[in-house]
């Protein structure tokens, strides 16, 4: 008797999805997201857009922290670099937006080599601290290089026009973000099942063993940095376009924490986790606000005055609670539920 869902060939192990209905449901979700801009009001739509942009960034960080196990506290640095690269290329030098997006990926990727190289000798906490230092250094560089970045004044960014299609309207911009999110999701899933992705995970699980098996630690760690920074930079460009204004204040340090919270809540090292975590973390402040406003108008007022503080408090609380009670995140919870559903009333 079959007692579980076992994978018997290598082909099954590296398959993109493990059962055909997943394709169907994914297609339904994508269709729903394509239709969403026409069905939702602009407030709800802004959440969809933010979620799609954040998914791109979370998947980027997931490659570095989730797959390769290198903790980064400075991912907001790559985000802001990408946003500025796009803004400078497109708004300042009137380059085509496509070149802007390419630059938004490449510039952080190059910057990541600079921060990655000294990090090769470091592990764990020390790496977290170097990346933290990087995000502060990049902020100072941006503020000081006024001739290029306008310093603290920031740069205004227009919605782009790609392949003759204008993405000026909110609906069209959501579609653009959806496109980027889907491409990133496919890239992340495919990286994970490729040779490179397996090398990343091997480094995370045990770097000494990985090295013994012939994985070049330095090359793969740098590759993880570059890939992660490239994707994060593009998320930064999208976020900059969404804000229609790129400045250092638009990218507070809290975003780094938010990104880590997303990965922890979703489940480290899983692309599905990054998506689920994003949805939860982005909607969490709004959902809490709604629940509180049911109780009393006074609590609602507290939310509107101290929104920023409450939001960050929630992130902190969610990080602590998940690490304490569900360290594998939402993906872990989902696996547990699925297993119980299949095996009930047997335990396994």
């Amino acid at each position, binding site marked *: 008797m079959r007692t579980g869902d076992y994978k018997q060939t290598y082909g099954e192990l590296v398959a993109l999805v493990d059962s055909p209905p997943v394709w169907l449901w994914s297609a339904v979700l994508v269709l729903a997201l394509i239709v969403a801009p026409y069905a939702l009001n602009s407030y709800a739509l802004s959440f969809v857009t933010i979620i799609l942009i954040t998914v791109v960034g979370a998947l980027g960080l997931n490659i570095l922290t989730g797959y390769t196990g290198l*903790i980064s*506290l400075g991912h907001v640095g790559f985000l802001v670099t990408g946003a500025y690269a796009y803004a400078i290329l497109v708004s300042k030098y009137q380059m085509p937006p496509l070149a802007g997006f390419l630059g938004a990926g490449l510039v952080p990727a190059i910057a990541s080599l600079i921060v990655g190289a*000294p990090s090769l*000798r*470091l592990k*764990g*906490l*020390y790496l*977290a*601290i*170097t990346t*933290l*230092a*990087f995000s*502060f*250094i990049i902020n*100072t560089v941006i*503020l*000081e290089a006024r001739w290029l970045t306008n310093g603290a004044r920031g740069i205004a960014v227009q919605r782009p026009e790609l392949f003759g299609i204008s993405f000026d309207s909110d609906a069209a911009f959501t579609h653009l973000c959806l496109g980027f999110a889907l491409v990133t999701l496919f890239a992340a899933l495919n990286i994970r099942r490729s040779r490179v992705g397996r090398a990343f995970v091997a480094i995370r699980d045990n770097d*000494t063993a990985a090295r013994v098996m012939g994985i070049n630690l330095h090359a793969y760690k740098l590759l993880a940095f570059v890939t992660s920074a490239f994707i994060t930079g593009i998320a930064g460009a999208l976020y900059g376009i969404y804000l229609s204004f790129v400045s250092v204040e638009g990218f507070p340090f*809290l975003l780094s*924490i938010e990104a*880590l*919270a997303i990965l*922890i809540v979703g489940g480290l090292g899983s692309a599905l986790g990054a998506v689920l975590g994003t949805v939860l973390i982005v909607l969490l402040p709004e959902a809490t606000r709604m629940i509180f406003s049911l109780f009393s108008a006074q609590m609602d007022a507290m939310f509107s005055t*101290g929104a*920023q*503080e*409450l939001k*960050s*408090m929630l*992130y*902190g*609380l*969610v*990080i*602590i609670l998940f*690490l*304490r009670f569900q*360290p594998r995140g939402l993906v872990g919870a989902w696996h547990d539920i699925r297993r119980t559903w299949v095996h009930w009333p047997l335990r396994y």
Partner: protein
Amino acid sequence: MQYLMQLLISGLAIGAIYGLIAMGFSVIYKSTGLVNFAQGEMTMITAYIAWTISTTVGGNLFLVSIGAIIAAILLGLVIERVVMRPMLGEPVFATVMVTIGLAVILRSSINFIWDAYPHGLDVGFGRDIVRIGTIGVRTGQIAVITTLLLMLVAIWAFFRYSKFGVAMRAVAADDRTALLMGISAPRVHAAAWAASSVIAGIAGVFFAISYDLSPAMFQLGLKAFPATILGGLDAVLGSGIGGLLIGITENLAGGYLGSGMKEVAGFLMIIVVLMIRPFGIFGERDIERV
């Protein structure tokens, strides 16, 4: 020359504050093996509590310092018991992330409990200026440098001679063996958190006396990072000295190269240090055997 001396003195004063916070970092790292990302926030909270006490009792120096120390001990103990102890035995990544979550919560609680405006902590001393030759120094600055030096001696003696200090070193070296030898690891952890909270709290109070109290004070913790990395995460005394070095570097960079450099001088310095000696100047190289 006078400009240089002035920069050096104020660098030493702010460096002493970084040094105290950095010692807080390494006390926790030394006995629990984790970096407490909430150190700056704990510094800030104690300073705010001291401010509240000083406004209620009218700036009595004795009451303020006793109250602040008790508050810091309680804060450290509560955090250890409620937040950190359930995480015993979890991977380092998880525990460190918990301290980050804690930092975010503490930081935003400041605006809720107190307010977002800067305040001066007035305890009747610290703001008046003493002249040494041609250089003006605030008494608060002299006091904080003296405190750091006294603290360095006290902590050195504590770890070297007291039984509990030796127990802490034992837990840090290998907590399982220490448990087998009859040392209570949770008690050592609790003591480390309380001690670290007090040291950081003293730094916060001195900062509030010499400069001002504001919700941006948690950045002191970020500035103390370079100090503790420079000195060595596991070197308590080294961290204190690292603080002085970072303070001086930062002030000289700010004085001669511009204010932008002041903000990042410390971070640039640790990147360089980490490339050459990843374990800090006074830290111990840990050898991995396979």
